[in-house]
């Protein structure tokens, strides 16, 4: 198996009849790495994510998962090894009960109902949602929905976890729990997010997208401390790296003299 588990090579895609899309995207992500994908709205994060799972076919360039480039033929294998957690859990939880939903993937993989159920229960336990088994998705809180959505993906035992805005719409505690949960995963992770504080917690590496192009790819803290880069990419520093406007303690001013 190759050392690089996700590899994009000069990826280009533009939406029909527009000039938005992504241009010349290249990166490679190794086993166990946790990468944040940041950028303003419309920077191309979702477009990029949709290529990693074969929803969109690139105009030119290629994406490989493990040793295989994504093609129509191996789409099923790719989708098995790449688990995608959607931004809105309501889109992901479409089955009548939590158990049905978490079983959906395993059953599609061809598991027998019993082993599918076991895989589902195991995944639910993993995210601390075992008690929600029989609930319908519309009777879950935002945080619970998110946990179950992650479980639906874990149940398929993917190698790579891709998440689109996992911390959006969560109350502070639920967000904290989510971050702890994600920290405990050993999977390769790609997390598209606006929550740069979470990126600091979870990802040692960050890729910055701006107008469909990669403007930076490197250590998370280095990137977030680079004011010009952040400004040009339309981003604002994580809160904890900004000075406190109330108590007046500004880390930068404190450093500068």
């Amino acid at each position, binding site marked *: 198996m190759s050392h690089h588990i996700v590899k994009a090579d000069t990826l280009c895609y533009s939406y029909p009849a527009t000039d938005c899309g992504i241009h010349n995207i290249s990166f490679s992500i190794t086993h166990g790495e946790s990468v944040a994908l940041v950028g303003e709205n419309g920077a191309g994060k979702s477009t990029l994510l949709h290529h990693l799972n074969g929803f969109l076919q690139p105009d030119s360039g290629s994406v490989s998962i493990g040793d295989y480039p994504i093609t129509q033929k191996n789409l099923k294998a790719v989708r098995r090894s790449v688990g995608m957690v959607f931004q*809105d859990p309501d889109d992901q939880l*479409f*089955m009548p009960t939590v158990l049905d939903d978490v079983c959906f993937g395993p059953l599609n993989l061809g598991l027998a109902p019993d082993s599918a159920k076991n895989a589902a229960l195991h995944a639910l336990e993993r995210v601390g949602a075992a008690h929600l088994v029989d609930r319908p998705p519309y009777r879950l809180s935002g945080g619970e929905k998110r946990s179950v959505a992650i479980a639906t993906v874990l149940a398929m035992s993917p190698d790579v976890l891709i998440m689109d805005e996992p911390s959006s719409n969560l109350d502070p505690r639920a967000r904290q729990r989510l971050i702890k949960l994600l920290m405990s995963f050993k999977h390769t992770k790609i997390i598209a997010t606006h929550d740069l504080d979470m990126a600091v917690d979870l990802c040692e590496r960050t890729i910055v997208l701006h107008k469909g192009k990669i403007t930076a790819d490197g250590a998370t803290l280095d990137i977030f401390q680079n004011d010009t880069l952040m400004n040009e990419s339309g981003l604002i520093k994580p809160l904890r790296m900004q000075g406190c406007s109330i108590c007046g303690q500004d880390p930068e001013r404190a450093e500068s003299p």
Partner: protein
Amino acid sequence: MTFLERNFLDIRNLDLMARGDSWPHRLDPRVKVLTTMIFIITVVSMDKYSISQLIPFAVFPVSLLAASGLPPGYFLKKILLVSPFALMVGLFNPLLDQTILLHIGSLGISGGWISLVSIMLRFTLTVGAALILIGITSFNGICLALEKFRVPKVFVVQLLFLYRYIFVLLDEASRMSRARSLRSLDIKGPGIKTFGSMAGNLLLRATGRAERIHLAMLCRGFDGNIHTMNSSSLYLKDILFLLGWTVVFYLLRTYNFPELIGNGVLNFT
């Protein structure tokens, strides 16, 4: 509260009730659906002037209601709320059918009034039974029962998806109409044009959501088949419930118990 919010609350209430835990709740959905259907057909098959013979049928909804611990007032209110159509059509009966069928003292009561009362009784019984069915059976359970009854999978899946997304779309729709009414400073609903673009926007969001759901399904290996975990089995109590009630309905349909009792009482005194 708007019409929409009221209905939304209503669905949520019934959905919550159906998650209760009592012996009617625990019965297999199949026997509940079947028994309710038999009940409704039996009630509807009664003669159009029957009143007294219809009354004992109340034993079915009343005992289910009591045994399941659901609030009777809630169901009565719901039945009253939907009664206008039956009442409206039924009200023509007294005008059109004036054959005197019954004399109480010097007062003659026409067939029309009797059949109107009969219609309202049927209405209460059939609507009550249907509402109680959903109060003691989860919608999911009903869908799985339908699947077992060989209703095509396409339709069962449609019902499940519909029900799942009613909760999401009703929420979106109520947020949208709240936002509209806050800015239009009136108590009335939107005009047709505004409604058109509200519904249009809602529809666009709905199709967008459908696309994302489809992606999420593909992502988890969807190949056109939805596998449901449908492994319920019938127990003796389920069979007994079905058979017992069927016999009761048959007896109630065949013999006019109230009249028998009434005769007995009158003869005795």
